[in-house]
Every structure is written in structure tokens, then in C-alpha cells.
């Protein structure tokens, strides 16, 4: 059980004073970061020097088909039509692969924009996870567990590092799903609720119309917010004066100031009209196919640029059990240009080097076709034993293709990377030791990677 977060706090101002002297001086003062204000969100030193300071987590819900995008298998082209080892017909990739960039990264023609960024991508082709069912694999990807409700990765990161800005939430999720665990995929479980994500929009609704709750003024009378704040703070100051050493009151005062700052800052950051036309075009905003995801990606960039620690951007519809020929190109089209734009944009702003970008689904797909209602469907079933994700920026080796699946892509066979290893590696890049990032709950120290996880040092630059 966490021992009381209410205990002595130092004020936000003091924190930034002390914070400048580093973590050690705080520890000497006998306080932990958690006791300070902005309280749980105050910046904290990582365990060791980080390569990345923030994360953009691009979640492709459904399980993208690696066979048609990243994991080039010449044998699968050749063997298409034959019976595979799961007794169904092997399905040749429907699109052509070619090599890209100096690294010669293999990518299919479905990703014309992203393939120009091939040298930025560290493509991990030997991913494995513990379930091939969406309802379990999605929470697993986000929280490291489907057995029990556990904090999401973003919450762990925020708990470990705090927020780097006072004026914005530390963890934002854009258009999350309500299915398969819904909010617990970005929840804080037993960590204090301050570590849960701030949500923008829902899956299935255009992000254009989405708002963050309580960010826009809902005052009784417009224009009096300043007066309301002044009155409240004046009362708080008097209370502080007569109840000496009352850190809780200081905490309230700081949180009110910060909420004021946040309300002034955040709407501007989410206002994409402040971007130039060329930038909007770069992301494909205004174009029907790419408008929505382009906006999500651009928001993500604007958020991390302003100091948000962890942003998840979700895209849905990657579950091609049938209609692969029509539906996959459509999905790819909707994300290809925006993601490429995000990488270009981050790089030209000097942000890519310390922003870790993740792309992937909860699992991948099979090399064989699927039988649906007795008929052979042009689609692929789930695959948890071998699938592809990629990382970019934030200290990873761009242009690397890591790990290998068997010749038909059923299973990872070389340099297997389990989901726990991926989590451990991502935390490592952020300067966090996944074995030390723990929280005492129910008499035991919990962590994102449970009892598992090895950092994959080979993917780190």
C-alpha cells in the first residue's frame, strides 16, 4: 500500500528551485518527488540518462498484416495457393515489395510515403505476444496484463518521469477505443488517478469535432474566470497564512494556477489552424482519406512539442479477416502519409532524436487465408507468434530490420521479441529500468513487465 501521498509537500515553486539542484538534494531533504506539488506530476529524474524524453504511440487496432506491409517473404509469393500448415490456403501478398532507403528496408507498395522514411524505422519483425484474441491482446499491449486491471504504459511512464510541463496534461490519448477494456487501456489502475490519460475524442468519431472535457469555459458569466480564480486564491492565501505549514492548501493553490495555465495553453495547442498550409498539406489534412488521422498525428506532434510526455494515437480497422484487397489499401492510405509527415515534421523540428515513436497493433496476421462461414475469404486470421512493429526516433537504430520469422511468416524464429521485451526496451529508452519502476500495491511491488522482459539492446542506437 502506498504510504500516504498527503504527507509533507513542498510547494511547486520550491520544487522547481530544489528540482534545479537535482534529485539528490530532494532526497536529502527527506522528501520524494511524489510529496511535492504539482504533486504526482512533478518532473522526476529517470534511473539513467535517457535517449528519449517522450513517446508517440501509434496504435493500429485489429492487427495489421505484416505480410502485406513489412515482412517480405518471397516464399509466400511462390507458395500462394498451396495448403499451409494450418490446413488452409497460403495467400500470396497482394502487393509488391521493394527495398527502400540506404538501409534497403523492405516495404510494400501500400506505404509509398512511409517507405521514403525507411531509414528512420527500426522494424522489429519477430514480435510475439501472449494472446491472439483482441479482447486479451489489446489490454496486454497497453497494460502488460489481461489477467488483472493494471496501469497502462503511459501511466507508468508518467509515474516514472512526471510531466515536463506544468501547463499541459502529461498523458493524452486521441480517439481511444471503448471496446476490449476501453478506458482501462489508458487508465492508472492502482496508481493515483493523476496518472491516467486525458482523452480527446472516441474511436469512430472524427477528431475534428472532439474536445477535451472541461477545457472550455462553462462559466456562469463569460469573462469572469479571472475574478473567480482571484477570489478563491485570496481565500486560500488567508487559509495558508493561518494554518502554517499546510502543504495541502499550497497544493490546492498550485493546482488552481496550473489549471488556469492549462486552459490558456491547451486549446491553442489543439488548434490546428495555427499551422501553415504546407504543414497541413504535408499531413494530408483536408484530403478525405487522410484528414482525420492527419489531424491526430499533427495534434500529437503539437502536444509532444509542448512538453506532453506520452501521446497515444489510435487508428482502427486493421482486422482484415476478409476483404483484404480492398480494406487494407484503404487503411494504409489513411495512415501512410500522416505518419510519414509526422516523422518528417518531428525531424525538421529537432524533436525526432528524443521522441520515441511506436507503430503497431495488438498482434499480426497469418500467411494463410481464412475460411469464413464455410467460404474461403480474402483475408488473414490473427497471429500472436510472429508479427511486426516498428520504432523510430528516440535513440533507436533507424534503418534496422530486427528479428526474423520463418520463411512463410508463421512464427518468429530469430531474435524473438516478446511484448514484455518491447515494453522493457521502450522504458529503457526513456531512462527507466523496467525492474525498478515499481509501485507497492496489495503487499507486492508491481511493474509494467510483471516478472519478465529483457531490454533488446540491439535495437538501440
Amino acid at each position, binding site marked *: 500500500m502506498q504510504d500516504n501521498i498527503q504527507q509533507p509537500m513542498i510547494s511547486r515553486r520550491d520544487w522547481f528551485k530544489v528540482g534545479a539542484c537535482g534529485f539528490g538534494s530532494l532526497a536529502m531533504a527527506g522528501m520524494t518527488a511524489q510529496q511535492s506539488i*504539482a504533486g504526482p506530476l512533478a518532473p522526476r529524474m529517470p534511473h539513467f540518462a535517457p535517449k528519449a524524453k517522450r513517446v508517440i504511440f501509434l496504435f493500429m487496432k485489429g492487427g495489421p498484416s505484416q505480410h502485406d506491409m513489412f515482412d517480405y517473404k518471397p516464399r509466400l509469393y511462390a507458395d500462394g495457393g498451396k495448403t499451409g500448415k494450418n490446413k488452409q490456403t497460403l495467400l500470396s501478398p497482394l502487393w509488391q515489395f521493394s527495398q527502400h532507403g540506404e538501409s534497403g528496408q523492405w516495404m510494400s507498395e501500400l506505404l509509398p510515403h512511409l517507405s521514403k522514411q525507411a531509414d528512420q524505422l527500426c522494424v522489429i519483425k519477430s514480435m510475439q505476444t501472449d494472446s491472439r484474441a483482441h479482447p486479451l491482446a489489446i489490454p496486454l499491449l497497453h497494460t502488460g496484463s489481461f489477467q488483472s486491471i493494471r496501469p497502462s504504459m503511459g501511466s507508468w511512464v508518467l509515474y516514472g518521469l512526471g510531466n515536463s510541463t506544468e501547463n499541459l496534461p502529461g498523458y493524452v490519448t486521441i480517439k481511444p477505443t471503448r471496446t476490449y477494456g476501453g478506458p482501462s487501456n489508458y487508465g492508472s489502475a492502482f496508481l493515483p*488517478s493523476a496518472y491516467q490519460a486525458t482523452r480527446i475524442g472516441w474511436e469512430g468519431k472524427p477528431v475534428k469535432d472532439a474536445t477535451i472535457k472541461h477545457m472550455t469555459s*462553462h462559466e456562469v458569466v463569460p469573462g469572469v474566470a479571472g475574478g473567480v480564480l*482571484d477570489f478563491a486564491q485570496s*481565500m486560500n492565501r488567508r*487559509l495558508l497564512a493561518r494554518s502554517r505549514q499546510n502543504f495541502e*492548501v499550497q497544493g490546492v493553490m498550485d493546482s488552481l494556477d*496550473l489549471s488556469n495555465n492549462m486552459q490558456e495553453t491547451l486549446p491553442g495547442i489543439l488548434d490546428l489552424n495555427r499551422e501553415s498550409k504546407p504543414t497541413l498539406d504535408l499531413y494530408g489534412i483536408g484530403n478525405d482519406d487522410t484528414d482525420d488521422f492527419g489531424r491526430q498525428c499533427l495534434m500529437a506532434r503539437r502536444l509532444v512539442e509542448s512538453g506532453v510526455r506520452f501521446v497515444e494515437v489510435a487508428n482502427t480497422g486493421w482486422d482484415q479477416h476478409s476483404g483484404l484487397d480492398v480494406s487494407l489499401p484503404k487503411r494504409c492510405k489513411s495512415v501512410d502519409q500522416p505518419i510519414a509527415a509526422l516523422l518528417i515534421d518531428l525531424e525538421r523540428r529537432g524533436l525526432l532524436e528524443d521522441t520515441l515513436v511506436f507503430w503497431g497493433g495488438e498482434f499480426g496476421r497469418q500467411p494463410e487465408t481464412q475460411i469464413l462461414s464455410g467460404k474461403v475469404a480474402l483475408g488473414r486470421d490473427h497471429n500472436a507468434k510472429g508479427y511486426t512493429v516498428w520504432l523510430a526516433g528516440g535513440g533507436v537504430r533507424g534503418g534496422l530490420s530486427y528479428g526474423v520469422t520463418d520463411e512463410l511468416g508463421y512464427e518468429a524464429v530469430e531474435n524473438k521479441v516478446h511484448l514484455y521485451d518491447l515494453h522493457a526496451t521502450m522504458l529503457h529508452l526513456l531512462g527507466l529500468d523496467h525492474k525498478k519502476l515499481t509501485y507497492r500495491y496489495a*503487499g507486492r511491488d508491481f511493474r509494467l513487465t510483471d516478472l519478465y522482459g529483457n531490454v533488446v539492446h540491439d535495437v538501440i542506437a
Partner: protein
Amino acid sequence: MRVSWAGLILFSVSHAWAEDTPAASPEVATPEKNAAGIELFEKHIRPVLIEKCYSCHSQSADSIEGDLELDTSAGLAAGGISGPILDKEKVESSLLLKVLRHEEGVESMPPDEKLDDETILAFKKWISIGAPDPRDSSLPTSQQMRAEEQLKHWAFQPPQASTPPTVAQADWPQGMIDSFILAQLEAKNLQPTADASRETLVRRLYFDLIGLPPTVKDVRQYVEDQSVDAVDRLVDRLLASPRYGERWARHWFDVVRYAESSGKEFNFTYPHAWPYRDYVIEALNSDKPYNEFVREQIAGDLMPEAPYELPANRESRLIATSFLSFGPKRHSSGGTAFRMEIVDDQIDVTCRAILGITVSCAKCHDHKFDPIPTKDYYSLAGIFLSTDPLYGTILQKYSNNPTDLLPIGPNAQAKHDALIEYNKMVEAVEKPLTTKKAELTTVNEAKKTADKNKGAAEKQIAANQEAGIEEDSALKKKLDEAVAAAKIEADNITRLNAEILPLQAAVDELKKKRPPAPAYAMMVRDSAKPADVKVAIRGNLGSRGDLAPRGFLTALQVDDVPEINPKQSGRLELANWMTSKKNPLPARVIVNRIWHHLFGRGLVSSVDNFGLMGSKPTHPELLDTLAVKFMEEGWSVKRLIRAITTSHTYQLSCNSIDQNMQIDPDNKLLWRSSTRRLPAEVIRDAMLAVSGQLQIIPPEGSTVTGLGDKMVRNIDTKKLQPPSNHRSVYLAVVRDYAPEMFDRFDFPSSALVSGSRAVTNTPSQGLFLRNSEFVVEQSSYAARRLLAEKSATDDVSRVDLAVRWVTGRKALTVEYEEALKLIDPIRKSQAEIKDRDVAAWATLFQALFSTAEFRYLVDIDTH
């Protein structure tokens, strides 16, 4: 009586062995054979163990791998986490031989080298003659020693009442609690701070006991009451209020993770969880003895009926067992995995909520920190696997294991039966109607086809005529056939319509007569065939170890609980064991929980964990004395709350003392009252109280009931939390979809046991207070209420009243000035403002609602 730990392990080993080997015992050996066996051991076995195995499998190892210890005969016989390593009956099945031979599917031992064949053969021979081991069999393994040591942990010893210590400031204590507190303060050179003012105290008591602010009149009455027993009477009055149960039920709900949906990936609604909510509120209000309260929740269905007992009483005991049914579940799964997941949750919640210990770790291995062997876990699992939870989900498409529910209320069973009967009747009457309607559809189609054919033929004939083509007999025949067919189908349609008419009328009539449905509740009941289960090695259900007879935790020996009735699940005995006066934990745990709620910190600060990883009590004698007294005085929660709140310690101010801050900055020794934040529910209720909108009459049932059996994701979020002015305890508790405000103010996850909530100050709280519709609306209502107040008709008295409502004290002059500065511009603004006065005063309330003084229990300024 306590059985020694080592003894237990040895017992369990021989027990398992006895089960497996009904034949002659190999341990009965002749002296010659014995001597030869010992020689074999000394010559060929022991040296190998020492040289090749001890580095990982002995007390001298850095960490004992796989919990296997080979340096004692007890350890060798017991085996490790993978179970016994010796199979004296089926020698070839011995795990030891398999690992030595580096067989497939087991770990190879030693890991880096394979012993020579001769040595392995010696091991085989040694096992086949019964694995004689001359080492002292009474020597414990290090795990046994650790367990022995763990058993000495303070929380596993029976609580002992102590005489209150004598103190220097003899006139300070108002009762025994104060003596214990003051003694420690004096020992540490701490001076208790000044007493809280009456204004501060009355507000603290109202919020702590009933979760609502005192009215201006309540405050005045108490402040002016000069009688010596003023506090006692106030406490009694608050404890007698029905609002008390509503406030304290929420504390219990945090612990038992009460919710109205299944959570997890699919998150199905539980429309019938709410009767448990009402049960808890009622139990608290009637001050049901805590041991009874717990017993009912674990085994209410098995408890004997009292003579002439009211049916409603018995029903409430059944409802109480919902406690074991509304936990988070994955209804989309099935089989043993689904059942074990429920059992895991039941073991976790009962042990943590009631005993303050975590047992679930023992599922896969002996508990790392507490003396809880894996076998104990499966003894409990047997009890819960012999219990069927009833959770409904009957209409859930994706629920693989729906169950019935308990009909409740007057004539519930009759109503339920009538409804079932009625549904059958509707089905019976609808069946012919459905058939006829289907027939009609077919006939309609046929008629259409005939008409089409007729039309086509006619058209062709006409065209032929036009073109002067001579009559085609085939065509003519076609037309005739089509006409005949159309006629037949037309007749059919008429006939069917005539037949349908009365059937439809009958169905319509029947549907009007739908009998009223009863309400339903969740519960549990014993399964048809209660049985023991075997240990699942490493928690793997496919790999079975020893049988674990149903029972309780061996670390907590209680001798006044009868054996488990083999024909029942064992829950009744479990409930009695859990609440036995001889069980060292339940009274301590609940006393500490109550203390935690009244001081913001438990005497044991890890309120859900009294095990070795938990915190030590700051005042062990006080905790024990309170626990013993609690049991002796009939487990009365109200009595305990009364004793604590009438103590001097509780009634201190928050006032700081510099010297004390140096010694005890965290106020662990309670030299002052800690500044505590009100929980989310209380903040909301207090706003509703100030705005005058609070609907104090409890609602019937829950809004979730009206949603029916649904997946939460398919429900509009607005419908999950429809607007309500009821007290917060009555808002729907849908897992993952807590009301926005609760999320902001640290409402815990309703999937997890949370005896202690986090308290954070975050910007999102500020945003909620500034911009949420709820706060803005309540501010407006408060303004209307203020403007209608006859006792306050000018600005001065209005500001004063507003401040009194929100903070419990009179307004300061400076506040009056600042308030005018805030509201005057609005009143005098040239802009068009609807209900200008209301808007102005609402703005003031919004400001007041966002102050620390509103949501924290602080010292009230009485100057």
C-alpha cells in the same frame, strides 16, 4: 492451538504420499537393506548432491532455485515448486531422474553438464529402494525456518488488551484512547496541540459521520450548547441518522470493489447488483454486528434461520452474498479458467478485505513474504469452487455462462414464477402466429411472382397481337396458369389474414397482461457436488499436485471452528473462522479501517496489508486494546466510532507546533488533527447540499437496472451516468466509467480492493471546478437559493450566508469586499446578462466551491 509449520509441511508430504501409494510402504525396510541403502546414499548420492546441487539448492545458496532444498532430508522429501522430485513407486517417473537424464520437457540438471551414466544409475537404484536418507529428519529446511519465523509476525498473534498507560498530563485524556496516544507523545517529547474550535469540530463530525455539511442552524446549535455532553449527543444524533449508513457504506464498497458491471475486456452490466448496496447501507444504519455482517456476506445462504424469522431478514442474508458475485469477470471465457478466475478474485477480496492479508500470491508458489503455503490457497479454492456465483447476464450475447438470479421483494418467487409462466404462454401463443406470418410472407411472394408472370404473359400476348403474330398456345397456357396461381395465392392470403387476425389479437391482449416483474439480486449458493481440489503446480491448472482438503489458512489457527461439513462448500465454516474471536486479524483490520477513515491514516498505515510487507502499527497496544474491546462489546461499529470521535485526540485542531514538526512532521503520533481532503462523493454531496438540490430520499434501485443486460461500450456514456441529485452513493458504479468528477478526485478503480484512497491535487480538478456543467449549475442553484433567503436581503448578509454555507463559518470583512469586487462588475455590466443577480451570486459560489476550505477539513477561523 498452533501446529508447527515444519510439522505441517511434513504432514502434507506424508499425506500426499499415503494417497498415492496404497501398496506396501517402501520406507519399511529391513535393517540389512537399510544399511546398504544408507551406504549407497553416503557413497554415491550425498557427494553428488553436495558437489553438483548445493550451490543452487541448499541453505548456503544465494537464492534457492525452484524452492528445492537438497541439504536436508525434509527438503529432499518435500521437493520444490514443481512438486516432489522422488516417485518411489514409479521410479522412472521421478522428476529427479528425468532432470539428471536431461530429458525433454524438463529442465536439465546440473544445467551445464550431464552426470555420467553410472551416477545416474546409482540415483535410480537409490530411489527404487525407497530413497533412504540418514540425515536428521527433524532438521527443518530454510523455507520451514523462514515460515516459523514469519509465524511470529505481530499480526498473527492474538490481540491482547493492555491497561492504559499512565501519563504525566493526567487531566488530558478523556478516555483510554487518549492515554495510549498521549503516552507516546510524552515519550517523544511531543505536546498535543490545542483543541479544535466548536465550529471546526461540528463540521468535522458532520462530514466524517454523515458526509454532509452542517446547516447554519446545526452549527449554531452546537456552538451554543454548553452542556458537558454536547459532543456525545451530537455524535449519537449523527450516528442515528440514515445518512450515516450512506456515508460509511462507500468506505466498504471501496474495499469490496462493489460495482454494477463486470469490467474487463467486455464489461457487461450487472443490473442487479444494487440490492447489495442497500443491504450494506441498512446493515450500517442498524449497526449490525461486524462479525455478523461479514458472515452474511460469505455464507448468508448457509446460515440457519432464526425461529420465526422474517422472510425479509433471510432474503437480506442471501443478498449479502452478492459480495462474492459482483467481482470483475471475463464472461466471454468459460470452463475451468473462468471458474478459477472468479475463485482467485474471491480469495483475494475476502482475505484482503477481512483479514488484511494477500493470499493470491500463494496461487503459484508459497507466499514469498507471509507464511501462506500454496496448499492453503487451494484449500480455500476448494471452498469457492464448491460455490456457484449467481450473476445473471442471461440476455448477454457473449456471456458463455449465464446464471439465474435471486428474485427479491414481497412475493418475489411467485412473481418470478408467474413471469416465467407468462413468458412461456407468450411463446406458446406467438408460435402459431409466427408460423402463419412466415407462411403469409411466402404466399405474398408467390402471389407477386404469379402476378409478375401474368403481367409478363399479358404483355407478350398484347405485343404479339400488335405485331400481328398469331396466337401462341404455350403463351396462352402460361397466362392461364399464372391467373390460376394468382387466384390460389390471393385466396391463401385472405385465409391467412383471417387466421392471423384472432391470433394477433390474442398476442396483443396477452402482452397487455404482462405480470409485474420482481426485482432481482445476485448471490451465491453451494454447488451440487462440493469437493476438494488438487494443488495446481505453479498455478498451472494442467499440472496437478497434492490434494488440498478444503480448509483455511494454516498460519491462523482457530480452534473454535468445527470441521467443514463435507456435504457443503465450507463457506459457513470459513465465515466462522474468519470472524472467530480467536482469529487474530478481523477485529484489528476493521478497527484500523475505521481509525483510518477518522484520522486519515490507520494505526497500521497499510490498511489492506497486515502481513510481513505491511507497515508496523504506530500504537500496537492501542490497536490491540481497541480490537479486543470491539469484540467484547459485540463488534459494534457505531460504538467504536463513538469511542474514537469522543476522544480528545480526535477533537484536536490542525494547529501546527514548530517543535513537533521537527520530531514528527508526518503526525504519525497524532499530536494534531491532519488536514484531510473530503472524498469525491462528499464534495459532490456537499455542493448539492449548498445548492439546495440534494435529493435526500434514496432512489429505488439503480439506473443500471433500466439499461438491462448490455455491453457497456454499446451504451451512450450519458446514459451510464444520467443527471441525478441523489447522494453520490446511489450513482451507478460502472467499472471504467465512474462519473467524471469522481475520476478527478481520486475515486478508486472499482475493480481493485482499495482501503485507502490516494489524495492528489491536480490541474484537472481545477478545470472541473471552473468549467464543468455540474459545478456551474449547482452554483446557479445556490445563488437562487441565496436570493430567496428571507434572512439575508442585503449584500453583507448574503455574502456572510454564502460563506457560512460553503465553509461553515462567518464571512470576514475582507471577504465581503472581495466578493463585491467579483459580483459588482456583473451586476453593473452593460452587457445583456440573463438573470443578472443570479449570475452574479453564482459566480461567487463558483469561487467558493474551488477553495481549499470547502474541500478540506481545516481549522475554521472563528475571529
